[in-house]
């Protein structure tokens, strides 16, 4: 419990530091959202100046930061200049979509990686193991962007999958199940792409973790005692191999979120990614800060969950961390 408290405090301090840094960075940025209005002859300079003043642009850094913090405390996360609304509701929808996509593909990737990795480990050095090795290297070298563009091409050319978006027009009031089915159809392609991107690293780690267990004395002893089948696999092998794999789960969240940003933009999944790119191009400062902070919250939460899982699954760590 004390350990959890320490970790939480650390995470919150990190988030504060990140917000301060990203704010300072954006303060340095030349130009602002209203620059694009200046070329419009129908908007007078007074209007622009008024808008600037209303949004506190040009005020000193500590005041803007304090105002933003107050806004965070109220749950608004600042104001989006492009959407003319609070940032929080914008982010909420996008974050939900990103989480849906990443969690489905994480599940998908692990469900594929564990059997493939275990299978490959049990047939170590044989042809099938080598084939898995070659396949993972090949997947690792295909640029993400090429893969996602290829998936988009598949969707556009064959029409088997929707080529973007999250729901078909008019599907929103067709009843819950119809709608869920529609979202699932849109989800297949981006989730598959994301899973493929993370799969090779997972397979490699599952394989090496399993091999390590297979070679360890306790496993040989268990086998020598005549334990076999599912009991040997689940109680002895998988349990012992789970430690590095749980750490990997924590590490892979960052990769997953990064890859998700790209897949969302390419396959126009309405997640945080497209919103962030749009906000950067239009200099919508608070949306940028909000999206970046949120991604960090996801990552830190993921790492924390992985750590707690590790804590629960490995008694050695419980002892070590308790000290």
């Amino acid at each position, binding site marked *: 419990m004390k350990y959890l408290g320490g970790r939480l405090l650390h995470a919150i301090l990190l988030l504060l530091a990140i917000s301060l*840094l990203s704010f300072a960075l954006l303060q340095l940025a030349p130009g602002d959202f209203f620059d694009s209005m200046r070329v419009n002859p129908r908007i007078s300079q007074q209007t622009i100046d008024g808008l600037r003043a209303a949004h506190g642009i040009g005020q000193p850094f500590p005041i803007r930061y304090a105002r933003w913090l107050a806004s965070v405390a109220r749950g608004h996360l600042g104001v989006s200049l492009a959407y003319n609304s609070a940032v929080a509701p914008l982010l909420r929808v996008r974050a939900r979509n990103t989480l849906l996509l990443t969690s489905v593909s994480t599940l998908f990737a692990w469900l594929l990686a564990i059997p493939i990795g275990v299978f490959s480990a049990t047939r170590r050095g044989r042809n099938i193991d080598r084939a898995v090795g070659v396949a993972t290297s090949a997947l690792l070298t295909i640029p993400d962007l090429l893969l996602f563009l290829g998936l988009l091409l598949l969707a556009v050319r064959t029409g088997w999958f929707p080529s973007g978006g999250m729901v078909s027009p008019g599907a929103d009031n067709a009843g819950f199940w119809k709608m869920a089915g529609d979202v699932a159809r849109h989800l297949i392609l981006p989730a598959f792409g994301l899973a493929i991107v993370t799969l090779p690293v997972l397979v490699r780690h599952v394989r090496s973790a399993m091999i390590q267990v297979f070679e360890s004395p306790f496993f040989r002893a268990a086998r020598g005692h005549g334990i076999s089948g599912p009991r040997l696999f689940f109680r002895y092998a998988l349990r012992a191999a789970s430690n590095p794999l749980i750490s990997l789960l924590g590490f892979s969240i960052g990769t997953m979120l990064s890859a998700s940003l790209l897949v969302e933009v390419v396959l126009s999944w309405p997640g945080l990614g497209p919103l962030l790119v749009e906000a950067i191009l239009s200099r919508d400062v608070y949306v940028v800060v909000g999206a970046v902070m949120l991604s960090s919250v996801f990552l830190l939460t993921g790492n924390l969950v992985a750590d707690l899982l590790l804590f629960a699954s490995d008694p050695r760590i419980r002892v070590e961390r308790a000290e």
Partner: protein
Amino acid sequence: MNRNYKLRASIVLLGAFHVFILLAGFLAPYGYATQDRDMAFAPPTRVHFVDAHGSFHARPFVYGVKNNVSDSSYEEDPPNAYPLRLLVSGAPYKIAGLFSARLHLVGVSAPARLFLLGTDAYGRDQFSRFLYGGQLSLLAGMIAAALSVGIGGIVGSLAGFYGGWIDNALMRGSDLFFALPWLYLLFAVRSALPLHVPEWQVFLLLVSVIGLIGWSRPARLIRGIVLSARERNFVRAARGFGASDAYLLRRHILPQTYGVAFTQLALLIPQYILAEVTLSFLGLGIGEPVPSWGSLLATLQHYDVLSSYWWMFLPAVLLVPLFFAYHTAADALQERYESVSL
């Protein structure tokens, strides 16, 4: 596979690739900005050895291409064959920005065209643009990776060697960079920089942004090695003989980190090339008319280009062998230095 063989093969492949890119001007039939408005989205030119009568020619040749304006498709125009010529004089270029020349490796006489990877919306040769674009993208990847590993090396060795509050401060700093997903971090920093500035400034900005945000992983790895190297007996002995900190670091400790540093370089370069590609693809990087691998792919954001002109994918496909070579090199380096250090 023999790991020395693996390392050597990947280095040869990488060397060849980089020399090709360096000699872009010589190998490219056309300049990167040469437009041929009548030949927009022309498919890759087919190089023939056998003519319409079925007889074989040792010198490969191409046919002229007819543009059907009605459905904007292209077809070959067989009676007039144009042989490929070696070492032809063409548009002037510079190699490595130093030597001016006009000599190109291959070319065909007008009106035929040699578009090995097809053309883009302005009728520019994609193959030439790929080679020229590689100069920017590869250079960006290499400088940025060197920057990351350099900073990582300095921070990691200082933290590992001195320990104490220096170690604490530096490692808390690197925590910050681990608390953000990599691409989000890249975008956050990119967003603070101006959008529309001259190309060379964009290039410098990109390189420094990409390089500066990636130092924390190499720093941690190098710190770990320095921590254990510091306690080795020969290092302690040298210290006992009165060696200074600078001498210890330079002579005994840093050489032990070279393995990890090289491995990280081989891992980071392809990652950073991809970072440049991603940024330019999204319009946050190097823009027209200067080609980079990212801006070559940016046209694929239009559905009609994506679905109708398959050759626009070829630049991305050509990256696969390059990345494969880098990954193989990183693998081989890792195996090699792991077995040495243990």
